[in-house]
C-alpha cells in the first residue's frame, strides 16, 4: 500500500538542519566534501543522491558528530554542532535517529534488549513493564512483534533494518537519518521499507534525510532531492523536476 504524502511545506519555514560550506578530507589528497551546502525544513523528506564516494554518508556522520568536519558549519535545531560540548551534543543526538546501512544491531543482545537498552538509559523513570510495553508498541509499528526474542543473527536483512529503525524510533526523535535504507534488499522488501519510512514520517511527524542509490525509494519517499557531485550539491529539486532535467548527468540517475 502506497501512503499518500500529505506534508506541504510552507516556504517561510526555517530550516531545521542547515549545512554550510562543509569541507572534509582524509589525508592530504582525498578531499571528499568541498563546500557542501544544503538545508532541510521541518517535516521534509530530503533524499540525497550521488555516486559512491561522493560524501553522502560522511555528511550525515558529520551531522551527528560521528566525524568532525574540517571546515564549515552544521546547524541543527539552531545550534552549531561543532561548538557543542559532549552534553550539548548528546542532547541533540537524542533528538536525531540514525538508521545505519546494516541496522548496526548489537550482536550480543536480543531484539528486545536492543530496543530497551537506549530507552532504559534515557528514560530512567520507566519501570521494566513500561519499557517492555514501549518495546512491543514500537515493534508493532514496524511490523515485527514476532521477532522480539530473536537474536540479530536470526534476522533477515530487511528485518534487521526494521529493528534498527524501531531502535531509533523508541527515543522519539524529531529527525531521522537513513543511510541507504534499502541497499541489499530485494525489490519487495525495499518497497516495504520505503513505505515504512513514509508511514513513520506521518505517524511521528519526523524530518528525514534519506541517502540512497535506490531510485524507487527516492521517488516514493522524497519531497525534495539533492544530487552530490565532487563533494558539492550539483542539482536540487523535486523528483519529477530532476527526472526531466536538461542536464544529461542528472538525468542519468533516473534511467
Amino acid at each position, binding site marked *: 500500500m502506497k501512503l499518500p504524502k500529505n506534508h506541504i511545506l510552507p516556504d517561510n519555514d526555517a530550516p531545521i538542519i542547515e549545512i554550510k560550506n562543509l569541507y572534509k578530507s582524509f589525508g592530504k589528497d582525498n578531499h571528499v566534501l568541498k563546500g557542501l551546502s544544503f538545508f532541510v525544513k521541518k517535516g521534509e523528506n530530503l533524499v540525497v543522491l550521488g555516486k559512491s564516494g561522493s560524501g553522502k554518508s560522511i555528511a550525515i556522520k558529520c551531522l551527528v558528530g560521528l566525524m568532525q568536519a574540517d571546515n564549515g558549519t552544521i546547524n541543527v535545531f539552531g545550534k552549531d554542532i561543532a561548538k557543542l560540548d559532549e552534553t550539548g551534543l548528546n*542532547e541533540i543526538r537524542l533528538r536525531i535517529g540514525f538508521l*545505519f*546501512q546494516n541496522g548496526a544491531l548489537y550482536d550480543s543482545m536480543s531484539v528486545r534488549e536492543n530496543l530497551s537498552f*537506549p530507552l532504559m538509559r534515557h528514560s530512567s523513570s520507566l519501570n521494566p513493564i513500561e519499557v517492555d510495553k514501549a518495546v512491543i508498541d514500537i515493534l508493532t509499528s514496524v511490523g515485527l512483534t514476532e521477532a522480539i526474542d530473536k537474536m540479530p543473527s536470526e534476522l533477515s536483512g530487511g528485518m534487521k533494518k526494521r529493528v534498527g529503525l524501531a531502535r531509533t524510533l523508541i527515543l522519539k526523535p524529531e529527525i531521522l537519518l537513513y543511510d541507504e535504507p534499502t541497499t541489499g534488499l530485494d525489490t519487495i522488501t525495499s518497497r516495504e521499507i520505503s513505505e515504512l519510512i513514509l508511514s513513520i514520517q506521518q505517524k511521528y511527524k519526523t524530518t528525514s534525510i534519506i541517502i540512497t542509490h535506490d531510485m524507487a525509494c527516492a521517488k516514493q519517499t522524497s519531497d525534495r532531492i539533492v544530487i552530490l557531485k565532487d563533494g558539492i550539491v550539483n542539482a536540487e529539486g523535486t523528483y519529477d523536476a530532476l527526472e526531466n532535467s536538461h542536464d544529461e548527468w542528472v538525468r542519468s540517475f533516473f534511467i
Partner: protein
Amino acid sequence: MVIYLKSIFTDAGNLILFTTRFFREIVKPLFETHEFIKQCYVIGYKSLPLVAVTGFIMGLVLTLQSRPTLSKFGAESWLPGMVALSLIREIAPVITALICAGKVSSGIGAELGSMKVTEQIDAMEVSAINPFKYLVVTRILAATLMIPILVVFADAIGILGGYVGFNIHSDVNMVRYNAQVFESLDFIDIFPATIKTFFFGFSIGLIGCYKGFTASNGTESVGKAANSAVVLASLIIFIIDMLAVQITDLFF
C-alpha cells in the same frame, strides 16, 4: 624504516591518549555496574577451566622436572616449598597472564573490532550512550580485578598439581605436603607477586580494548586487532614482570 618507526610512535602516543581517556572516564558518574558484572563473569568465570588445567600442569611438571636435581643434593624434602615459591612468585602469575592475554585480550580485541566495523559503536554513540564508558571502562576494570583472582586460583591448583607430581615417586599426605608448602612461604613472596597481577590484568584489558576500539573499517582489521592485542599484551606482561622483579628486589 622511518615510516615503521613513525607508526610505532604514533601507536604509542595513541595508546597513552587512550589510557588517559580511561582514567578520565572512570571518575565520571553513571557506573555501568551491570555490564561490569557481566564482564567479570566472562573474563573470570569463563577462564576458570583453562586456568585450572594449565595451573595443574604447571605444578605437576615443575615438580617432576625439579625432583632429579634436588635428589642429587639430597634435598628432596625442599621440593614442595620450592615448587610453591616458584609458582607463586613467578610462574603462575606470568603463565596465567599470558594465557589470559591469548584468551581475554584477543577476545576483547575481536569483539570490539567487530562492533566497530559493523557500526555498533557508532550506533551507541548516536544514541547518546558513551561507548567508551560502556565497553572499554567495564572491560578494563573487570580484567584488572579478575586476573589476580585467576592467578590466586592458578597458584592453588598448581600447588595441588605439585602434590600429585610429588606423590608419583613418594608417599606424602596432603596435610604434611601443605605444611611444607606454607612453612616456606612468607608475606614478601605473596604480596609483590599479587600486586603485579593487577598490572597484568590492567594491561590485558587495556590492550584488547585499545586494539578493538581503534580498529579501522573492514573485516580484515578484526583479525588484525585480535592478533596484535595478543602480541602486544604478551610483550607488555613480560616488561611489567621485569620491572616488578627489579622493584621487588629493591624494596624487599
